[in-house]
């Protein structure tokens, strides 16, 4: 069964910490995405990547960075976590012409 795996389901971090969220897909998809999901705001795109070492800013990139050193792995980095980054983070991958496959999500709480 093909899937997108996010390394953590729940994370609690302190303000100012550097946080890494990892995502791995086993479908050989070219495209990978990081979204955050907040009540009433829906899914908002943070960053995406359409190839190894390539990245593009989404709608809300501030406070985040990403890394894609291998095709199957896409990491989201919170350089200095803040309480307003408390959210559900969703990773997704896709192949051209098809929709997303999402991971199960990481619920991050910054205290």
């Amino acid at each position, binding site marked *: 069964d093909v899937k997108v795996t996010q390394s953590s389901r729940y994370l609690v971090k302190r303000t100012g910490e550097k946080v890494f969220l990892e995502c791995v897909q086993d479908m050989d998809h070219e495209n990978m*995405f990081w979204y955050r999901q907040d009540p009433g*705001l*829906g*899914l908002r795109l943070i960053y995406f990547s359409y190839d190894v070492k390539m990245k593009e800013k989404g709608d809300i990139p501030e406070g985040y960075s990403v890394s894609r050193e291998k095709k199957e792995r896409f990491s989201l980095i919170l350089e200095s976590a803040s309480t307003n980054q408390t959210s559900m983070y*969703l990773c997704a991958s896709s192949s051209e*012409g098809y929709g997303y496959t999402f991971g199960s999500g990481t*619920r991050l709480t910054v205290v």
Partner: protein
Amino acid sequence: GESVGLHLPTLSVQEGDNSIINCAYSNSASDYFIWYKQESGKGPQFIIDIRSNMDKRQGQRVTVLLNKTVKHLSLQIAATQPGDSAVYFCADRPGTYKYIFGTGTRLKVLA
């Protein structure tokens, strides 16, 4: 700007009845549309998709209808079951790598 919206934030239906969830999109260039289901605490799960050269597509107990004239998408669920309770949202692809998601409709199935 581009947006994908939903007519009803919450829909309550009796078990066994048919459900219809609606979605409006704004970008006439969108060529691909997807419906996702998201259960509590989980990532979105693909339900069904449709391309812009089609008006209707059927899956198992689900049907998606696309009306390009009024930029409207609907998801019909036949014989709604308790396991169908979730948030449903649509997404459209306006010709780029990324998709635009609606904020979602919560479907509640009443016993």
